[in-house]
Each structure stands twice: as C-alpha cells, then as structure tokens.
C-alpha cells in the first residue's frame, strides 16, 4: 500500500526507488509483506465473527438452519461465480503490469470493478428482499409463522408441551442468525466498496501514467487485497447460505 512520493513519473518500465530503501527488490518485498500481514490482521477480524457464529450455531442448530433457508442459495451461487471471475480479471491485471501492457492493465481493472459492482448489486437486491420480509434485526423483526411452528415442533416434548423460555431463546437465535448474516455480509460489502474504489482509482492512475514501472508493486498489493475479499466470501457463502 505504498505510493511513490513524486506526482508524475516517467513513462518507462522503471520503478522509482524511495529514499529509505536500498533496492527495488527490498521495496517490492516490503510492500507485499506489509499487505500480507494486513490481511492476517483482517483474518483475525473476521475470525472473531466466525467464532461468534460457530458458538451460536452450535447452541441452536435448528434455528440457524431455518433462518438459512430464507437466503437464496442460487443468487448466492451466481454471485460467487461473479466474484471468482473478478479475481481472474484482477490476476490478469497484475500479470499485465509485469509484461508492461498498459491497455490490458486498465481493461482488466475496469472489468474487475464492473464484476465487483455486479456482485454488490445482487447483494443489495437480496438484502432488500429480506428487509421486505421483516427479517432485518431490530424492532421490526418478525419470526415468520411457519418457522415458529417448526421451532415449536422441534422443542415439543413427549407430552406435547413447549417450554416458553426455550422457545423465546430459539426465536432469539433465529434473529441472531440474521444479525450475523447482515453484519458479516455488510462488513464484506464494505471491503468490496473500498476495493472497487481502489480498483477504479488504480485504473485511472495507470491510464494517466501516474505510476512508475506500470504500478507493479502497488497493483500486486491491491490484487492480494481483492483476492482476500473474495476468499472471505467463499467462506461466508457456505456458512450463511448452504447450511442444509
């Protein structure tokens, strides 16, 4: 995540060396390593959420199962494909920085941004459907009747009696699945928005020849970030959509 301090760079393949580094190799290594450790930090951020998810799903598998059925796994599947394709175009952009093909860099970065935006579009559409069904956590949340029936059946003892305390708790966990769903996909979407903004910015900077050395180091770091955000989705999709 390092940009050269000079505002205009000569249009040659050579990168500018910052004054505190000895050579380009050291400079590139530092940038990439910095991004890797940043991503390690991000993994820990998501792992806190996944730990919370694991605990509550372990406590109430049935409620999580019922809640998960409200998510459309086919839209999620399509979105996964879109996102993986965007990773491909990102990788092509990084490759193009190495071969020094400026037009290919810009083209692939813009495709990455388009695919990322398409993902977000589908996500917004999904969220809207869920909010319309009163599944957004908070005051307006309603546990759908047939899910409540299911939970009652699940809790029913041999004498046909349902413990109201346990029922309330299961309904709470049902809502909790949606809390985690909205929060995890929301945090993921936030990362996507940051990523798309950076990708568009990088496409512009490459187009206007702002980077030295075709922005090889910078684009590689951005690529790492983009792939990481994709991988997070690859974990979120089965956790949230594919419980069955």
């Amino acid at each position, binding site marked *: *995540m*390092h940009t050269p301090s000079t505002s205009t760079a000569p249009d040659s393949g050579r990168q500018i060396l910052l*004054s*505190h*580094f000895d050579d380009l190799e*050291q400079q590139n*290594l*530092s940038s990439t*390593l*910095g991004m890797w*450790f*940043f991503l*390690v*930090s*991000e993994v*820990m*951020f*998501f*792992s*806190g*959420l996944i*730990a*919370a998810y694991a*605990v*509550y799903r372990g*406590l*109430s598998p049935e*409620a999580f199962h019922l809640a998960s059925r409200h998510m459309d796994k086919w839209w999620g599947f399509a979105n996964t494909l879109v996102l993986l394709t965007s990773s491909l175009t990102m990788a092509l952009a990084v490759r193009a920085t190495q071969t020094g093909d400026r037009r290919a860099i810009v083209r692939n970065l813009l495709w990455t941004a388009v695919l990322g935006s398409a993902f977000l579009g589908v996500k917004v559409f999904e969220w809207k459907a869920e909010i319309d069904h009163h599944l957004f*956590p*908070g*005051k307006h949340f309603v546990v759908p009747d047939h899910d409540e029936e299911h939970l009652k059946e699940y809790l029913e003892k041999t004498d046909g009696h349902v413990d109201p305390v346990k029922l*309330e*708790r*299961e*309904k*709470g*966990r*049902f*809502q*909790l699945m949606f*809390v985690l769903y909205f*929060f995890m996909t929301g945090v993921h979407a936030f990362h996507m928005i940051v990523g798309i903004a950076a990708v568009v910015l990088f496409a512009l900077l490459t187009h206007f020849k702002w980077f030295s050395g075709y922005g090889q180091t910078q684009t590689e770091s951005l690529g790492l970030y983009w792939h990481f955000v994709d991988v997070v989705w690859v974990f979120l999709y089965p956790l949230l959509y594919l419980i069955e």
Partner: protein
Amino acid sequence: MSASAQAHHDGPPADYLSESTVKSWLLTTDHKRVGILYLISVTIFFIAGGVLAGLMRLELMTPRGDVLGSPDTYNRMFTMHGVIMIFFFLVPAIPSVLGNFLLPLMIGARDLAFPKINLLSWYVYMVGGIMGVWILMHGGIDTGWTFYTPFSSMYSNSMVLTAAVAVFITGFSSILTGLNFIVTVHTMRAPGMTWFRMPLFVWSHYATALIMVLATPVLAISIVLVGLEKFFGVGVFDPRLGGDPVLFQHLFWFYSHPAVYIMVLPGFAVISEIIPCFARRPIFGYRFVAFASVAIAIFGFLVWGHHMFVSGQSMYAGAVFSILSFLVAIPSAIKVFNWTATLYKGSLSFDTPMLYALGFMGLFTIGGLTGLMLASLALDVHVHDTYFVVAHFHYIMVGGTVMAYLGGIHFWWPKISGRTYPEIWGKLSALLVFVGFNLTFFPQFLLGYLGMPRRYFEYRPEFQVLNVMSTAGATVLAVGMLMPMIYLGLSLRQPKNAGDNPWGATGLEWQIESPPTTHNFHEPVLVTCEPYLYSPEEAEREYAHAQHVHSA
C-alpha cells in the same frame, strides 16, 4: 534538511530536530520525529490518567464516600483511569515512542518500511485520543475498562458507544505500528544484521508487533458487536434475545490478555538493553531471551480464560486455562534469571537507567509470582475481583512497564535530545518511584487478601489504615513521576552536551551523532559482530585507571 540550510551552516549536517516549524512536525515521516510526537501525546495522557488515579486514592482515604460526591462519579473515574492508561498510554508508550525512535537505528535502517503509514498511525491515535478526552469531559463511562456485557450494552447510560468507537480507532493505530515493525524487521535489516545479531530490543518489539497485528482486530470486532447491540437493540450478547454475555468476555479477553504482553514485552525490550550496558557483560543466554519473547507472544494467546474462572465456564476449561497460564511463567522466568545471570560477576554501575531496571526486576518478579497465585483456580476464586488483582496487575503494568519506560527514557535521552540530565535528580526519582510504588500497591495485596473488593466507592472501617498507606504512597509516586518531566524538560535548555555514546554502550544507535541526523547513518552500515560485546575486564581496568588518576 534542505540544501540551502546546509550551505548556510558550514558544519556537520543538521540533526533531525533542527527544523522547528509546526508544519515540519505535523507532516514529518521521519521515524524519530514520529516517536517524539508520540512522546508528547502519551505523556499528556499519562498525566490525565494519573490525575484520575490521584482523585480515586483521595476518595479511598476514608471509608465513607466524601470526596467525589457519588458512587457514580467514582465508577466513571476508575473506568476512565483504566481506558486512558491502557489504550492511550501503556499500549503505545514503549513501542510507539522508543520503538519508533530506535528500531530502525538498531537494525541499521534509514527509516521504517512505511514512513507515511507510521505518521498515519499517530494521527489515528490522536483521533481516538481526542475522542477519549471528549468522553472524559462529557461525563465519561461507567462500565470499567472491560466493557462487560450486558451492563455495557443494555443498562449503562453513559457514553459506551463513543468509547467503543474511540477504542476501535486507536486499535488501528496499534495495528499499523505493528505491521510497520514486522515488515521493517523482515526487510530493512542492514547487511550482516542477521536475526541472531539483532539487539533483544528488536526481538521483543517483533513479538509485540505480532500480538498487535493478531489480537487487536478481535478487540475491534467485539466492541463493534457491543456497539451494534446498543445501537440497533439486537441481542448478540443479550440473554433475553438468545445471546450469551460470556461470549463477549471470551472475545474481549482473547485480545486483552495478549494485550498485557503488548504492554510488558516492550518493557523486557528496554531492560534487556540496560542490564548488559551497566553490568558491562554480554547478555547471558541471548537466544533464550530472544525466543522467550516469542514464546510469551504465543502462550499469551492461549490463556485468556483465566480471567473467567468465576463466570461459568466449564471446570475443565478452567483447569486447562490454569495450566496454560502457569506455562507463561516459564519464558518470563527465563528472562528474569538471564538478566540476573548477566549481573553476576558484572562490573555494575548504578546510573539512573540501571536503578530503574533493577527496580523493574524486583517489581516484575513480585507481579509475576502473584500472577501465578491468581492462575491457580482455588485461590483465584477467593481473591477474584478484590484489591489483590488490582495490586497484581499494577505490579506488572506500573512496576514493570512504567519503570521500564522511564528507565528507557533516561537511557536514551542523551540520544533522543542530545543532552544529559542531572544524575542526582534522576537517581532520586528512581528511588521515589520505587518506594512510592511499593507503598501504594503492597498494602493493596493485603487489602485484597483480607477481602476488600475492587471498584467499590466505600469500604469497611477496618481497611482504613492500609488504604491511608496506599494513598500516601500514591503521593510519593506522583512526585517521583513528575520529577523526570521537570528535569528532562529543563535539560532541553542546555547546549547539546551528551556526546555520541555517554554510557559507552554497544549497539548501532550509539555509533552515530546525538541527536541523529535525518537519514541516521552517513555511510552504508555493515554489521560484523554479535550485540552486547561488553567486557567486564576492560571495565575493571578503566575503573582502576580512573581511581589511579583521581588519587594522583
């Protein structure tokens, strides 16, 4: 340093302090200047946190609540004391001040790997810090620094949300610093500076940086969840809505126990430099001390459950966490024993930094041993949430980290500022801090063992004698800590008289001018030997020679 400035002064190149405009400070990317920015800010927060502690001790002079007016004010006082001291002083103190200043110098680099990110970390820290001050001025929070749910998320009507945002933001500053240190140690070492030629200061900071990068995000996510619960009214930790308040404690302590090592490992870093220098001996068991830092960082992630022995986790989990907590004592003890072995047959001189370092060793040992008492299940149930715990972690945090921080500031002050300070005042401050500290916190061990609970506004009259002792000690401690601020501040009025290497220390940072120039080194650095090549025999000869000259 501009070319014209060099043309005007026909002397040696200007040092990093010579540019003095406000803009040159606020836009600097020089690691040394960022270190100074941090020095000023953490000192201000330390004073703020100290004043709060003083007010609390004043309140506790008498068994009845009579100074602060209401228990609620007292709750806000101790919470703000904890939040400020931990997040705005202890976590950034040594890494961001001394680490920033010294890490590149010690490995022969011109700067940290990401100088702009380094400056950014200070700005992020200041945004969090100013929010913290704002909270303090608008009533504060009353949850304790631990933000335990469900009190914080459901019942507290203080500014929990703002505090959560402030801590969240400050966490990013810590992550950025950690990231920078890790990458710098990996990629910026001078030729010949192998991993086992690095000073132990660097090893300890590397371990600290690993914890910062791995643990801080978990704190971030847990307080975001508290904020979410409070803001949207959803039940992540609310048992009525299917949540589990103990989950918060797990997430919180997963950060906050390793955070203890974020605070104390840099203290070890400082002590590992001071002890060999003033004992004139190479450090005993270099690799053991180095790996002990990494081992502490790793074990530190596996012991968070020892904060929760009484919060309903299973007995087996408690037993496992208890055993793992005992394991942390091994690398910690390796360090203390190795420092002691370094002292053995050394040619000791008792300058101010050494006095602080020796004080550290004593106090940290007491803190560590009482930590073992708290790690044992049965005893912890007895003293849980009493003053015993308060005394224990103050022995680690103040007796350990603050003593090391002050020792480090005294040790490197000639390098940082180019000036010496009056030795007699330095020794007096070290003595006052040591005596005042013990007088403040040793009675609290007794109070806790006798059953005085922590965080209480009033107490039973039979505890008064020990509480008065503690308050008296706090006064001495305050004087001892204010003194360095005065005489170090006044030393800036003198000319730069320190010389490059006033202590005769090894280490790359002592090979260059005091204060260093902007680019640190004038020629490429090549490292050819191990650190800490001190010789006690030579020290003896020098001493004998000095005596001879003196008597002749």
